[in-house]
Each structure stands twice: as structure tokens, then as C-alpha cells.
């Protein structure tokens, strides 16, 4: 039964994506929607990304210095490890998990409310491809903004690490040497590629749950929760496959 339900939902998801990825009827309207989504999904998320990344960067630095670093290890270990954690996993995967909560629930509840208040029916009656009009700008908007968010997250994490250095937990020089030690540019690209995939998962899965909601406000709430849970699970699965593939 579970497999049948899964395959049925996956089939409906693919059909919805088929309708979504079509040429917009009016480029002017598409661009208007796209710019709105850049702001709503991307720019509005910058604050939370900076805040979380700053504190996580500081905490990673403190944890490593106090609990892992020892006289047997080089002084730059703390900065080096902080950088690797931030660049390789936190700023792409964990940040996208956090964003799936904020952005995913936003998308699912917005589209779900439009569904139950017949706004999507109104679009269909007018002859508008509602899936393409509503979902495509969200997917492309989030995928455009995610590299910026990843870079902001990395930068805020390093600033957080320096903040812990300023209060004397670690020396600024050691931290700087650690952050620069054996730097590989590919890791930044890897992080961005992963975040592109995660952004697609967040926007498309959340849109699917919102678009297919039936009922009232209770069902919109449920769809919103389902969207967050399923997109988080898919991000974790995708991470498992992408990490060895890109390393």
C-alpha cells in the first residue's frame, strides 16, 4: 500500500512538474512574479541565514578549541575544521534544511490557501496555466538566490568564528591561518551545486503539497507540515548521494 501511494504521489508530482516547466504565457508577468519570489524567498531569508550561521560558526570554533584541540595538534586546527564544516556541510545542507522549514512552509501554505479559496480555479478558468504561473517563478527564484545565501552563510560563519576569537577563546592569527590552510576552491562549488539541487527539492516538493491540497485550513496546515517533512527527508537522501558523487 505504501509503495502504491508513493508511486501515485510521485507520478502526480512528475505530471505537475511537466505542467510547471512550460514556456510562460507572458514574459512580463513571469518576470514580475520571478522578481517577487527573489525577494520573498531569497532576500527575506538573508536575516535568518546570517543569524544562524554567525552563531553556529562561533559555537563550532569554541567547541573545537575547548574539546578537540590538544598540544598534539597544530594551532590552526580550530580554524581549519571550522572552515571545512561550514563550507562542506553547514552552509549547503544544514542551511537548506533550515530553509526548507521557513521557505517550504511559506510556499505550501501560500499555494494551498490559493487552492482552497478557489484562486487557482480562477486562474484555470481564465485559461492561465496555474502550475507554471505560480510554481515556476518560485523554483527559479529560490535556485537563483540559494548561491547567495550559501555564500552569506559561509561568510557569517567565519565572522562568528572571529567573534569567538575576539573574546579570547582562540587566537586571531591561528584562526586566520586555519581558515586559509589547504583551501580548495572546488569545495565552494560543491556546496553551491548541492544547494541548487536542495533548492529545487524545497520549492518543487512544497509547491506540490500546496497545489494538491483538498479541503480547508486544517488541510493547508497539514500540507505545510508534510511539505517541510518530505523536503527535509529528500534533502538528506540527496546529500548522501551527492556528497560522494561530487567529492
Amino acid at each position, binding site marked *: 500500500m505504501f509503495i502504491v501511494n508513493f508511486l501515485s504521489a510521485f507520478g502526480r508530482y512528475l505530471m505537475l512538474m511537466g505542467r510547471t516547466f512550460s514556456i510562460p504565457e507572458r514574459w512580463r508577468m513571469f518576470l514580475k512574479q520571478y522578481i517577487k519570489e527573489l525577494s520573498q524567498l531569497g532576500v527575506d531569508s538573508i536575516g535568518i541565514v546570517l543569524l544562524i550561521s554567525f552563531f553556529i560558526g562561533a559555537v563550532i570554533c569554541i567547541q573545537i578549541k575547548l574539546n578537540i584541540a590538544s598540544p598534539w595538534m597544530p594551532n590552526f586546527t580550530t580554524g581549519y575544521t571550522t572552515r571545512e564544516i561550514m563550507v562542506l556541510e553547514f552552509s549547503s545542507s544544514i542551511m537548506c534544511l533550515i530553509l526548507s522549514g521557513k521557505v517550504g512552509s511559506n510556499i505550501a501554505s501560500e499555494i494551498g490557501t490559493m487552492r482552497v479559496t478557489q484562486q487557482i480555479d480562477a486562474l484555470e*478558468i*481564465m485559461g492561465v496555466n496555474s502550475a507554471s504561473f505560480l510554481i515556476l517563478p518560485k523554483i527559479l527564484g529560490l535556485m537563483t538566490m540559494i548561491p547567495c545565501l550559501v555564500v552569506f552563510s559561509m561568510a557569517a560563519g567565519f565572522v562568528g568564528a572571529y567573534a569567538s576569537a575576539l573574546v579570547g577563546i582562540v587566537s586571531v592569527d591561528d584562526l586566520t591561518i586555519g581558515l586559509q590552510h589547504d583551501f580548495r576552491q572546488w569545495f565552494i562549488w560543491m556546496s553551491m551545486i548541492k544547494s541548487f539541487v536542495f533548492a529545487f527539492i524545497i520549492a518543487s516538493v512544497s509547491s506540490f503539497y500546496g497545489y494538491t491540497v483538498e479541503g480547508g485550513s486544517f488541510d493547508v496546515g497539514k500540507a505545510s507540515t508534510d511539505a517541510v517533512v518530505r523536503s527535509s527527508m529528500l534533502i538528506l537522501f540527496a546529500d548522501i548521494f551527492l556528497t560522494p558523487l561530487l567529492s
Partner: protein
Amino acid sequence: MIEIKHLYKSFEGRAVLTDINAIFEEGKTNLIIGQSGSGKTVLVKNIVGLFEPDKGEVLYDGRNFVKMSKREKVLIRREMGMIFQSAALFDSMSVLENVMFPLDMFSGKNEADRIKRAKFCLDRVNLAGAEDKFPGEISGGMQKRVAIARAIALNPKYLFCDEPNSGLDPKTSLVIDELIHSITEEYKMTTIINTHDMNSVMGIGENIIYICEGRKEWQGNKDQIMTSTNEKLNSFIFASDLFRKVKEANS
């Protein structure tokens, strides 16, 4: 003109519409009436293509909508306007943007002309001055009027109204009915109104179809409805004390 021939629709084996035949005339307000759950909304949704009928034909001026390709359906939908029970205005857009939306999507006019047309439609429904308000800031009656303005923005040939008076006071309902009626005559549209409001029936019912348990039970106009001998129709109309007394007074 819209014609329905032998239309059937069921959900999970339960018949909701059975062998519906009807003609909805151009330039007239055609009403579909019936109790809640009788299948009125399902019928309208089949006509506009939100549901696919199990069997039967829906003819728009002789063009069979059921057999059309997706592309053809999209084109014919641009000749339709619809007013939903909940008005279904776009929350994130102002009143003017809501009315401009179909123009933005489908008209080749420049922005100044689109704004001019949207303001004309708002003026037609007596909403001049409310352009910058958002749907959440206006009353239910005003929302319905914005929905009417949006529906007529592209000069549609067919207008559908799903319980346009639902949730409105009797006076505002009268205004909405009169507005739909006058717009129908003015633009020579084929208008189909789905309602169970007897005031609408007696006010603008030029062609009325009564649906009971998914079947068409009666067809006539507002003058014939009070003298009908159809038992099911009478039990629906004269469920209200007011109409029973009107009938007694007339007889």
C-alpha cells in the same frame, strides 16, 4: 448559447449528475437552482471544464468543449468569465491589479489602455476610488463587485456565477443580481448563475433549471415557477414561509 446534452458525472461510483440536458440562451440570465448537494456546482464545474464529464456534450455555440484539445480549451476559456462563491480575488494584488490581471495576461493593449479598461470596469460596478485597496480591506459585497469587474474585463462571451449572493445581505444581493443582469443584457453574454437564493430567482430568472438529486426536474422562467405543478420544485420553493404566503395571497 451553451447547450448541454446527456451529461453524466459520478464520483467514486456515486452518480452526482444523471442525463442532464439544457440550453442556456445568449443575452439572458440563466439560473441553475436546487438544494445544497443537488449537483449545481458540479454541473457548473463540468460546463467550465474544472471537472471532466463521464459522458455527454457541452456545446459552446456549437463547439463541443469536452472533445476539444487542451490548446482549444485554453482559447475558449479566454471567452469565459467566472464569479466564484468566495469571489476568489488574488490576495496579494490590489483591486486594480486584480481587474487588470486578465488584461495583463491576454490583451495586447499597452499599460495605459489596460489601466483605462480596468478603471472603466471598476466604474461599471460602482467601485471607482477603490483601486488601491486590497481584497482583505473591502467588504464581501465589494469583493463580489471586484470579481464581476475582473470577469468582464476581457468582454467575455460567457459568464458563470457560482452562488454570487452567498454570504451577502438581501440589499447587497439585489445590487449584485441587478448588476449581473444589466451586464448580461449590455454585453449580450450567455450568463449561467448557480444559486439557491429565491430572491434572485424571482428577480432575474429569465431561464431557470431546477436540479434535484443530480437530475433536471424542471425548466421555465420566473413567471412560470410560482404556478408549476412539479412537486419537487414546489417543495423546494415553498420551503420558505414567505413564498408560501405569497402563493396563498396570489391564489
